[in-house]
């Protein structure tokens, strides 16, 4: 957020909306209405004095109405921009009344009651629609009594209650009496997967299951004495990377019970205000009333109310659910019906964060086609750097992180302690150091107090160090003179129950941080030239899309495919859900585009070796050598090959969904499997998925695939039953297809982990399938002609293992490549210049793979559209006068950083390639002569921390 606010190429227009869009792709003329803010953005410093003095108190929409704000306000503490705004509907100033309190209190004279807003004209090449969703209004279901009963909340309200900055500072209390609830119930699918008109939308909102799982775990953290948490659900849809493991972790929480069933109504005990839930247990059929202290409705996502107006302005259509309609002919989820207008995230349908992020990047790549690049900044502006030669002048900044830190640690004591440390010349605390205002404060203090070292005692450097470094850099303090102490994760979070000890530990950490900061040295980034070409490994749908996108941006693209032809998994499919596109047509269209482009595509080619680093990779393939600046891995995954589960291999008529797909491919009207028309086909879901022994994750594609195949079979008169654990029909149209399958008479029967279905047969043929019917607790026997196993997705072991060895991209527990961040960096890896797209990082369907292909292209473009790339200077270096060329560092380094070279005097010594070194320090700790120094973690720096900690102890 702060990044976007600070980026020189981004102009942020908040409180604004598009009112007109003329022209066409490559040359749109947009009119944007900037609504009056009544506060001058240039003058307002976000000090908040105006809000202090404002007499009007109204409910705060950011706190979903649970907190209060003034009529002049900043939406939340870390808001970007942090300019205040007047809510004129509630402001006292009117034609007949004069309050003027805020105007009087503002010493910058930023308040302007006569602000009338303005219309700005902007010429753009493309438009990206990322306007998100609205939360379903739970009061539309009267039987749940939301808005009527005190202790029935929505998930969004709970989210704020759990938040340390929220209205209750993170303490879970129920609204009626502010007591800590002992028994909480979650009701899933509120407004989603509805059956009737008033029950909301038909589709699955996708995020609510996991959100509830997360909230259950957080409740346990916030209220350890909780007695019972009940989750009423239809299917738990943990269909995303790492989600199934997360769900499994929640099942280990003894207080948490998952109960299958959709409550019919909620009543309230008039005396205690306890909600009473009426529910039929989906497994036992037993109807019960359950009294709880608090009920939470997992409200789903609906299309934003503003969509219809925006669609008119944009000249595009909405689908039947009110989301922006996608042009399905590309198989991509990003194109609208108007050229040059792209849609991503929840504006086009429900998506979780990681898919939204990938789609955002993907839309960026698409939009690039119609945009012009700004000229490259040649020389960075000369900055005046703060002189660090004198004695250290350390500033210590303490962050409250709302109450995440200040709720446990004694901030005043920490401040006193910090002031007593030698060389500390300034100490200050702030509610949120990461806010715009907090960062500006740090910058001002650096100048005021001539600080030449900055220590922040706050949260984790993993997410926030870059923000601080950037702020230091902006005011001329070398960013590597900043030190971060994590007093949140390491003190206040883990020692919540012992605040005194947590504070003592924080004192030690601050002492150590200050000690280290004194020994920090300024470091400077080197830049190296970038080879402006890219290699895409894998010619499947994700790879082809990435390649096409990059080529369209004018970059040199090499695409290599191991098999004899491009197409990947599309070559094995018939139809692609949800739009029922022909897989053959889709892959042919992509292949033709690749053919017609300047992409150098070679089939039957494999990687032999890759050396080098971001901007400069040397690739050796079985078909010649390449030099590229970046690499996209899109080598896909394999379909799990069943062992002997469910009679596979033993009975001829037990086949996989992949084998069935081939049969459907060849069948025209009447479906024949091996020459016969089957009467009954039984599908078994989750074969090789959601199994901690084999593949712990959900493979995501198999439920919608089974539905697609089941409908096809059912339509030609076959009896179909689907045996499943949870039907996970997430994604566009999937739930609707599931409903259609049920309407057509496909039977869905649930099994659980304790009792898997069994297949019996003789003479090489399966005859019956036995399954425990959970509601009646009796064994059902189904005579079958065919059993279809919905096989999950597993890593393509040989390829993934080989590329892991070559490129060092880490793999996850199931063997897929690990992204930089599951949510925020879905196509990046920890290796700079190396990206992943499609199923190589975990199971995905075609649409998601296409979006990832485009997303990877956007990321590659941001590196190789520049002539140089900056290298992180926190690497290791060799003092060659001390090196005796033993070569141990060469052997030990995972990244091929060190090598032995001959010096001018004929001696041999180690040398570390700065571009390859990740700064892990393994070589430095191993080096027997101490010749290797980790630049940002020198012995001196580490020793100083130890000394600070042990001073007075030993």
């Amino acid at each position, binding site marked *: 957020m702060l990044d976007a606010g600070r980026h020189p190429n981004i102009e942020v227009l908040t409180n604004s909306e598009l009112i007109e869009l003329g022209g066409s792709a490559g040359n749109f003329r*947009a009119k944007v209405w900037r609504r009056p*803010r009544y506060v001058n953005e240039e003058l307002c410093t976000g000090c908040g004095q105006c809000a202090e003095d404002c007499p009007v108190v109204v409910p705060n929409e950011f706190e979903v109405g649970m907190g209060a704000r003034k009529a002049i306000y900043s939406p939340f503490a870390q808001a970007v921009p942090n300019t205040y705004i007047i809510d004129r509907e509630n402001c006292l100033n009117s034609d007949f009344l004069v309050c003027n309190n805020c105007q009087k209190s503002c010493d910058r004279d930023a308040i302007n009651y006569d602000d009338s807003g303005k219309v700005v004209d902007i010429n753009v090449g493309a438009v990206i629609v990322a306007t998100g969703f609205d939360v379903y209004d739970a009061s539309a279901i009267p039987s749940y009594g939301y808005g009527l009963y005190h202790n029935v909340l929505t998930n969004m309200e709970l989210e704020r209650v759990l938040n340390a900055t929220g209205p209750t500072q993170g303490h879970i209390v129920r609204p009626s009496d502010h007591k800590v609830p002992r028994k909480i119930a979650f009701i899933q699918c509120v407004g989603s997967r509805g059956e009737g008109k008033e029950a909301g939308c038909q589709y699955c909102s996708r995020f609510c299951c996991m959100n509830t799982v997360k909230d259950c775990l957080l409740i346990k953290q916030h209220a350890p004495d909780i007695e019972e948490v009940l989750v009423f659900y239809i299917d738990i849809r943990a269909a995303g990377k790492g*989600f199934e493991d997360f769900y499994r972790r929640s099942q280990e929480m003894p207080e948490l019970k998952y109960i299958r069933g959709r409550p019919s109504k909620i009543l309230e005990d008039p005396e205690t205000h306890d909600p009473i839930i009426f529910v039929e247990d989906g497994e036992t059929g037993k109807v019960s009333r359950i009294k709880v202290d608090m009920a939470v409705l997992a409200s789903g996502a609906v299309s934003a109310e503003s969509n219809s107006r925006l669609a008119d302005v944009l000249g595009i259509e909405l689908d039947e659910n009110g989301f922006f309609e996608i042009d399905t002919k590309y198989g991509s989820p990003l194109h609208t019906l108007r050229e040059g207008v792209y849609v991503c995230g929840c504006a086009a349908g429900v998506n979780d964060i990681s898919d939204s*992020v990938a789609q*955002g990047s993907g839309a960026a790549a698409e939009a690039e086609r119609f945009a012009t*690049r700004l000229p490259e900044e040649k020389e960075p502006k000369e900055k005046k750097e703060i002189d660090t030669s004198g004695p250290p002048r350390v500033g210590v900044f303490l962050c409250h992180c709302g109450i995440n830190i200040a709720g446990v640690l004694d901030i005043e004591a920490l401040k006193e302690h910090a002031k007593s440390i030698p060389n500390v010349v300034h100490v200050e605390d702030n509610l949120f150091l990461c806010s715009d205002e907090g960062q500006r404060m740090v910058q001002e203090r650096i100048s005021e107090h001539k600080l030449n070292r900055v220590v922040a005692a706050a949260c984790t450097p993993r997410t926030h160090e870059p923000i601080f470094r950037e702020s230091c850099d902006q005011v001329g303090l070398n960013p590597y003179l900043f030190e971060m102490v994590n007093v949140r994760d390491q003190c206040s979070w883990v020692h919540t129950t012992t605040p005194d000890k947590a504070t003592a530990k924080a004192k030690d950490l601050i002492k150590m941080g200050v000690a280290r900061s004194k020994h920090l040295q300024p470091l400077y980034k080197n830049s190296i030239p970038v080879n*402006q070409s890219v290699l895409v490994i894998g010619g499947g749908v994700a790879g082809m899309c990435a390649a096409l996108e990059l080529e369209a941006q004018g970059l040199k693209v090499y695409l290599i495919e191991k098999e004899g032809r491009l197409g990947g998994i599309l070559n094995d499919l018939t139809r692609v859900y949800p739009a029922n596109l022909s897989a053959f047509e889709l892959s042919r269209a992509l292949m033709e585009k690749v053919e017609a482009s300047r992409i150098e595509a070679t089939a039957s080619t494999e990687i032999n070796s890759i050396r080098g680093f971001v901007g400069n990779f040397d690739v050796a393939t079985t078909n010649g050598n390449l030099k590229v600046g970046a690499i996209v891995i899109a080598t896909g995954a394999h379909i799990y090959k069943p062992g002997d589960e469910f009679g596979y291999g033993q009975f001829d008529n037990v086949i996989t969904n992949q084998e069935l797909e081939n049969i459907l491919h060849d069948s025209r009207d009447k479906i024949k499997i091996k020459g016969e028309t089957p009467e009954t086909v039984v599908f078994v879901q989750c074969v090789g998925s959601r199994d901690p022994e084999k593949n712990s994750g959900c493979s995501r594609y198999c439920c919608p695939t089974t539905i697609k195949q089941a409908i096809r079979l059912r339509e030609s008169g076959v009896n179909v039953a689907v045996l499943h654990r949870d039907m996970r029909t997430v994604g566009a149209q999937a739930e609707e297809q599931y409903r259609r399958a049920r309407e057509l008479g496909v039977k869905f029967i649930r099994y659980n982990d304790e009792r898997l279905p069994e297949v019996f047969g003789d003479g090489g043929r399966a005859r019956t399938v036995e399954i425990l019917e959970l509601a009646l607790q009796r064994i059902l026997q189904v005579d079958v002609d065919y059993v279809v196993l919905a096989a999950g997705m597993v890593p393509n072991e040989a390829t993934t293992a080989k590329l892991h060895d070559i490129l060092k991209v880490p793999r996850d527990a199931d063997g897929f490549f690990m992204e930089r*961040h599951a949510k925020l960096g879905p196509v990046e890896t920890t290796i700079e210049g190396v990206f992943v797209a499609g199923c190589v990082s975990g199971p995905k369907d075609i649409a998601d793979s296409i979006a990832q292909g485009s997303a990877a292209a956007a990321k590659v473009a941001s590196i190789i559209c520049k002539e140089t790339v900056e290298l992180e200077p926190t690497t290791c270096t060799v003092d060659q006068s001390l090196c005796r060329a033993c070569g141990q560092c060469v052997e030990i380094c995972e990244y091929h950083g060190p090598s032995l070279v001959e010096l001018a005097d004929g001696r041999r010594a180690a040398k570390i390639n700065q571009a390859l070194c990740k700064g892990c320090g393994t070589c430095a700790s191993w080096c027997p002569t101490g010749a290797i120094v980790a630049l940002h973690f020198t012995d001196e720096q580490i020793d100083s921390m130890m000394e600070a900690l042990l001073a007075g102890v030993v």
Partner: protein
Amino acid sequence: MTPRKRNDNGVLVLGGGITGIQAALDLANSRTKVYLVEKSPSLGGRMAQLDKTFPTMDCSI
């Protein structure tokens, strides 16, 4: 690299939530001018309202 055709054009991104911000940053990092339009007074969208995100439990801001 060859400078591309057409006018001196940027991209209009509607929506300042996580998706819009991601699109804007990727474009901006590829040296494209971005106009990020958000109807509410601040960036952040829904994600800023969340406490933590699953499954990594990272801070949402």
